[in-house]
């Protein structure tokens, strides 16, 4: 009972912090957009032929020439009602665009997040266990190189190998020509998911593997580890009982803290593979000055990153059995 209460209090505190944070994120991004030389009317009109009066009418309608405070108040008022405005390039409500795009991205991000986490952890454990051997060196060099490699370049190389040379996957991984997006079969959808997912997984492995390796080596230098070795435990059993138990939790925490990097990687990977996700929407919104959509995506990504940090905090503070035990005693 006590524990639930504590968790609720913790969550309440976090929620208040989050609300303050999001308000400042909105203010910051709004200010940045307002400073920019973007003119939404020009974007909207783009190729249409319109008279000066019509432009003036549009400007008045959208309040282009209002002071920033009025604009901000209007926009915030709409947000509270769940209305983020209308996207200028998709010509539909921003909320709908984000919902559709974010679901697609979420599948991509979560699968590769899971994949890279498991793979990275296993590689890290192997490297740490076989410290200073050839296997360790290979894994370490692989991780260092991946950490220094630009995400979009890895994506390009993978696209080149698997789509252009081997021809296993279509190069433009959008919807096949001649089919509506609703008619896409599960297989088609899977086909366009695999390459971006592999790319993101490969890149995500590096940090978690290096972290796990260092932690395991740290554990292997402790007295209790030495003692269990002296007792005659060895090999995999030793690592499983004394190593993994101690490093799993920090590794999971780290993986949750990586949501921001994951989002950044997704933006680049989606752009290379033309995967119709939130990252691609963000880039086209930025390039074609779709202000409402861009602001919507910033808010949305902030929520995403914050929830990752929140889960990491909860895991760290409430799941760790050692902390639970300490509470009971005290």
């Amino acid at each position, binding site marked *: 009972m006590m524990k639930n209460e504590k968790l609720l209090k913790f969550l309440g505190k976090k929620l208040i912090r989050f609300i303050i944070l999001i308000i400042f994120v909105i203010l910051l991004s709004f200010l940045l957009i307002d400073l920019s030389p973007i003119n939404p009317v020009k974007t909207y009109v783009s190729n249409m032929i319109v008279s000066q009066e019509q432009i003036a009418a549009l400007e008045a309608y959208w309040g282009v020439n209002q002071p920033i405070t009025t604009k901000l108040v209007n926009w915030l008022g709409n947000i509270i009602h769940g209305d983020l405005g209308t996207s200028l390039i998709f010509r539909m409500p921003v909320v709908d665009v984000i919902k559709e795009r974010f679901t697609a991205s979420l599948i991509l991000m979560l699968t590769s997040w899971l994949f890279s986490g498991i793979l990275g952890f296993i590689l890290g454990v192997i490297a740490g266990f076989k410290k200073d051997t050839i296997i360790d060196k290979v894994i370490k060099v692989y991780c260092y190189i991946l950490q*220094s490699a630009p995400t979009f370049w890895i994506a390009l190389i993978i696209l080149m190998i698997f789509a252009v040379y081997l021809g296993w996957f279509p190069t433009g991984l959008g919807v096949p020509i001649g089919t509506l997006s609703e008619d896409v079969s599960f297989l088609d959808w899977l086909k366009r998911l695999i390459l971006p997912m592999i790319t993101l997984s490969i890149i995500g492995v590096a940090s978690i593997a290096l972290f796990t390796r260092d932690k395991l080596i740290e554990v292997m230098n402790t007295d209790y580890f030495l003692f269990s070795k002296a007792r005659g435990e060895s090999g995999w059993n030793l690592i499983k009982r004394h190593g993994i138990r101690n490093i799993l939790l920090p590794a999971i925490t780290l993986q949750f803290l990586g949501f921001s990097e994951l989002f950044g990687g997704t933006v680049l990977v989606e752009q290379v593979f033309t995967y119709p996700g939130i990252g691609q929407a963000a880039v086209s919104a930025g390039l074609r000055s779709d202000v409402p959509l861009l602001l919507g995506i910033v808010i949305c990504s902030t929520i995403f990153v914050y929830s990752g940090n929140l889960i990491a905090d909860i895991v760290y503070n409430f799941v760790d059995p050692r902390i639970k035990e300490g509470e009971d005693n005290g």
Partner: protein
Amino acid sequence: MVNPNKNKSLNPLSKINLRTKTLLIIGLTILILVLIVICSFFIDSKEITTNFLIINQPPSFEHLFGTDWLGRDMFTRTIKGLGLSIQIGACASLLSSAIAIVLAFIGSINQKFDTFVAWFVDLFLSIPHILLIILISISLGGGALGVTIGVAFTHWTSLTRVLRAEIKQINTSDFVKLSERFGKSRLWIAKEHILPLVITQIIVGTILIFPHAIMHEASVTFLGFGLSPHEPAIGIILAESMKYLATGNWWLALFPGLALLIIVLLFDIAGENIKKILDPTSAND
């Protein structure tokens, strides 16, 4: 157990001690980086001319990285692009460590400022870096300035955290307390006590921002928010190469990206080794 001495005798570097070896690595990496920057200065943009007689040639001894669809030599373009990246990276990381230093010292004044700085770091970490760079770049109207400022304003957080922790520790030490009793001003303490102790952290931190700065600059340019398409930046080269992937011009994407990777790796190696020299406690890692 493998006998370490047996391994070492095979290595010609084993006769040199660790300090000399580390200095050697630093010297070599910096030499390569400086050479690239100097070379890129000597390459005149006008020299990268179009030559339709040699379009789309695969790598050869004459054109190490091949040529593109306008017959431009990719090797020259790549070197020029790398030079550009290093320059932007230098500006951005210097600027961002300046921000970090100022914020860390503001945080050391009192508890309230410290909470504010911690919160400010959280604020900047809560928006994915790439989106924030895009936003800043848009607000400044794009171009080299936009990217540099964007990268600078997103990469100060880690150094600020390190400095903040370090300064907090120094502030609890006896010599700082003694100086406070003597009535020395905060600025004097910052200059005489704190700065000499954190200067290595600042130098190492600045160098370690470099690789991230270069990579983010290339990424944002690749997405189309950074340098203008007329500049031979690595991001631009790779974005262009995407159009020619399907026709099998693999060299357009492979070599410029590989070159960027090597530069980033060199900065990383230089940074880690400089850390070892300046901060002996970390040398045993």
